[in-house]
Structures are given as structure tokens and as C-alpha cells.
């Protein structure tokens, strides 16, 4: 039934908040080694999809497998970058400490991070261009720097499959470039990265795989084949302001909101 070559395999996933479906009957097969964007309008359930897959919110039904394994056996294979607005950045801790949190799971109970962990954290910070900030209080970081710290924390997890929730949201150009180059490094290492993305303009440029989501999966596959004007319109239901240049040009047609 399950195929080892799929980094992420979701079958019949439904998530509901107070009897209202947020995700409806999701089937998704993400091959190993791709950089995949999840795009869709606000409220389409993009973040919810990631959180439901990782077991952070309860699902009404459905089966999720990572490299053919259930979540419980696949934890060590998964790295997670939450939305940076989801934590209090005034928490009393330093940049290096936050990055080391990515290693807590591997350390196990009762053991404290030591020299090896500090070095791993420092190396990961170096990869995102934040090595000079290792001892900095996290409350002193800019938004883009916060994002890079979160990325470094996921990097030390040394996972095979990464989930990133809106890493490009409201970051500076330096950070955007750092994330893109990081994504390419990860792909060269054969990792799979799944990114909740909101900027349609850059989908084709940054990602080789895409899932269009609006409560249901509208389309999923190689960007070149799947990221078509028709699919984008079906996903955004005609409510779209600016189509990517590649897709723009024909007469707009209104289809109304596409909701299951």
C-alpha cells in the first residue's frame, strides 16, 4: 500500500473546527527530494495541513505517512519551522539556545546540551548567516533574523523532510536570499522540503513541486505542469489580484469562490 519513495503520503485527511471542514478529503503524495510549495488563499488550510500532518491538531479522519512510516516512528526524520509569530520573542534566552532546542529530542530525557550541541547550533547558525548573533538575546532580533534562527533550529534536527510554515512572510531581502540558498542546499543533499508559501510570483522560481490548496487539493505535481493559470484561478476563485507574469495575459474569468 505505502510507497517508500514518497516523503509524505496523505490519504483521506479531513480536519474540522466546530463541524466546519477546514481540510476536506486531502490526498497528497509528495515524492522524495522535491522542494514543494503549498499555495492557496487565506483560510485555505495551508498551515492546518502541516499541523494536522504533524499531529499538532486533531484530525477527523485520514492517514499520514512519512517515508512509509507513521508519525510516531518518523519523528526523527522530520524538521519543523513554525510560523515565527507563534512564539513570544521576548522570552529570556539567546539565539544559540533556541537553535539548540532542535537537538533536545535527540538528547533524550535528563541529559543537558553540551559542547557538541553548542557546536552543531553554531554551525547551523553559520549556514543561515547568523553566526555573529549566537550570543544575542532573541528579543533584539529583526523579523528576518528571527526567521533565520528558526531555520537554523530546524537544520540541527538533521531531518530528511522539512515542513516550513510561511518562512518568507514579511522578511527582508537578505533573509529571503538566505532561505532560497538554504532550500537549494537542502535539495542538493536529497532532502524534501514542504513550504507554506503566499507569494505566487516566486513559486515557479523557487519550487519544483507545488500543491494548490483551498480546503481541498486543487492540484499537486511538478510546478511546470501543475502551476497553470486555470489551476490558480480555481484555487483562488477569481479573487486574485495579480497573477504571476508567466500566467497573466488572458481574459480573467470569474468562477466564484471555490469551496467544497
Amino acid at each position, binding site marked *: 500500500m505505502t510507497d517508500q519513495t514518497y516523503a509524505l503520503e496523505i490519504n483521506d485527511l479531513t480536519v474540522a473546527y466546530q463541524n466546519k471542514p477546514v481540510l476536506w478529503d486531502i490526498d497528497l503524495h509528495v515524492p522524495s527530494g522535491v522542494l514543494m510549495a503549498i499555495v492557496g488563499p487565506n483560510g485555505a488550510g495551508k498551515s492546518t495541513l502541516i*499541523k494536522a500532518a*504533524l*499531529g*499538532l491538531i486533531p484530525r477527523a479522519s485520514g492517514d499520514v505517512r512519512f517515508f512509509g512510516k507513521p508519525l*510516531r516512528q518518523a*519523528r526523527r526524520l*522530520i524538521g*519543523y519551522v*513554525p510560523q515565527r509569530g*507563534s*512564539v*513570544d520573542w521576548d*522570552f*529570556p*534566552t*539567546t539565539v*544559540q*539556545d*533556541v537553535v539548540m*532546542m532542535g537537538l*533536545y*529530542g535527540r*538528547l533524550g*530525557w*535528563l541529559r*543537558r*546540551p553540551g559542547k557538541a550541541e*553548542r*557546536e552543531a547550533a*553554531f554551525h547551523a547558525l553559520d549556514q543561515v548567516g547568523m*553566526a*555573529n548573533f*549566537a*550570543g544575542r*538575546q532573541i528579543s533584539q532580533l529583526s523579523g528576518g533574523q528571527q526567521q533565520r534562527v528558526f531555520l537554523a*533550529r530546524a537544520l540541527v534536527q538533521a531531518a530528511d523532510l522539512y515542513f516550513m510554515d510561511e518562512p518568507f512572510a514579511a522578511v527582508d531581502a537578505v533573509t529571503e536570499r538566505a532561505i532560497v540558498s538554504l532550500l537549494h542546499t537542502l535539495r542538493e543533499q536529497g532532502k524534501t522540503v514542504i513550504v507554506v508559501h503566499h507569494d505566487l510570483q516566486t513559486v515557479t522560481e523557487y519550487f519544483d513541486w507545488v500543491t494548490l490548496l483551498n480546503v481541498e487539493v486543487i492540484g499537486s505535481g511538478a510546478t511546470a505542469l501543475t502551476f497553470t493559470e486555470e489551476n490558480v484561478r480555481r484555487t483562488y476563485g477569481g479573487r486574485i489580484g495579480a497573477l504571476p507574469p508567466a500566467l497573466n495575459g488572458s481574459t480573467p474569468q470569474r468562477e466564484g469562490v471555490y469551496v467544497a
Partner: protein
Amino acid sequence: MLPEMRQMLPEDRRVWRFIGVVALLVALGIPLSVALGVQYDYTLTNVALGGALLGVLCGMTGTFAMLRGQSLLGDALSHAALPGVALAFLLVGREPFALLVGAAATGWLGAQLVGTLTNTTRLKQDAAMGIVLASFFAIGVALLSYIQGRADASQAGLDKFIFGQAAAIVQRDVLMLAAACVLVGATLFAFWKEFKLLTFDPDFARANGYPTRRLNLILSSLIVAVIVLGLQLAGVILMVGLLIAPAAAARQWTRRLEQMIVLAVILGAFAGGSGAVLSAVERGLPTGPMMIVVACSLVLVALLFAPERGVLWQLWQRRTAHQLTKEG
């Protein structure tokens, strides 16, 4: 490789040195009070120790309560404990352990009710807390008046739970608080990195496979236990002040959770100990308010004078920036 890989950062060393100085000053408070004429007889020693130990407990758990945004929940919880004290007294009489169990029971119930109200009705959490806090406290006061009205000698002192009474501390209370300190301290030490992660980023902890629900329960239970243990000393109305104030003051001066909790423990011990002694020396002064006056003075000083986070520091920085732009 940068220096922070190998040794402590100069900023951190400065903070630890500051914490050391504060600890020294607090310790100096004991000979100072003796010089001022305070006589530490058997009773007063118990009072001072009890207050200080409660402060230590508050510093340890208050740090987490504050960072988890549960300060007001602690307030609702301590108010909701009052009817439990009264009920336990009505059921089994003045039995210290029963009173604690009663307090914990209705306190816990109150906290749960806040959650239920927020989840099932359109009430926001602050409104739910306001309602629960007021109604439970009202029931508690009504029950206390009823108990007071009965011609029964054993009822004496139950109303002290409202504002706290440290003069009644006996050695057994001190031992219990000391045991609680060891237990809470050991738990926090054992699960230090887990509690830190859980407080900073619960989603990430959960995605890493940590049993966050169980860890949450342990941490919340510690906070509840400390509140309940402190009720008799600090009183239900002001208990939350002693829980949060040392942590709030400590946050101003520190940059790491480790530093914050150590400083909160020292400041808590000072506020609890000196508050208890002040109230016991001046007969009739309730203990809770005295502890809170001390603790809140510490917060005031911290809010004003702490480097970087303090008001004066920020004013000064703004002025310097202003002058720079003028000159430039």
C-alpha cells in the same frame, strides 16, 4: 570559531555577578534586621523561614507562570480556593491538610471552569476569569461568614486566609514548605530543557514528539501546589502577587531563563521573608499585603532602573538618539 563557543559571554558574566551581589544584599538583611532590634526567637524564626521558603517556591514557579501568560489564571485560581477552605473546614474541621486539599480542589475546579467557559461560550478568557474569580470568592466569603456565625471556638483564624497570617506558622509548616521546595526544585531541574522548550514553543515541542499534555500537567500542578501552599501565609487575594512579582522583577535584569529563575528565587525569598517578619513584628499587620509591598517595590525598582529594559534606560537612549539627529 567565536569566543561564545568556549566561554561565558561577558554580558552573561555581568548578569551572574549582579545576581551574586543581590544575593549578598539579601543575606545581609538578616544581620541588619537583628541590628535594628528584631529578635529571632523560635516563633519569629519559623515565620521568617516560612515566608522565605514560600518566596523561593513562588520565584521558581512564578517564572514559568509569567512566561506562559498564566498570571491572571493564578489569580482566579487562588480566589477560587477560598470556598474550598471553608467547605473543608465545615466537613472535617480545622485540619491543616484537609484545608489544603479543599483549597486545591476548588482552585483547580475554578481554573478548569475558566477553560470550559472560554471554550464553550462566547466569553473571552478575561471575562471568564473575572466571573469565576468573583463568584467563587463570593461563595467563599459567604461560607466564612456562616462559619464565623456559629458559636464554635475552633473557627478562629479561618478568615486569615483572605489576607494571610504568617504569625501562625509553626515548625511543621516550615518543614512542609522546605519539602515542597526540594520537590519543586528537583522536578524543574530534571525536566529543565523540556519545560523551557514547552514554555517557549509548545508546537515545536509537540512536533518533536514530547508528551506536551503530560508536561503541561506537571508544570501546572507545580504552580497550583505553590499557590495552595501559600494561601495561609499570603492570603487568597494577594497570593498571585507574590507568585508573579519576583519573576517580573527578575525578568528585567536577566537574559536567560536560568538567570531569571535564580534571581526570582532570591527576590522571592527576600519579599516573602521580610514581609513575614514585618507583619509578625508589628502585631496586626496582615502578612500578604506586607509581602506584596516588598515584592512590588522590587518590581518598581526593576521597571525603572534595569539596564536596557528599564524605563530610565530607554528614556536616556531616546534622548541620546534625539541629540544625535539634532547634531547630525
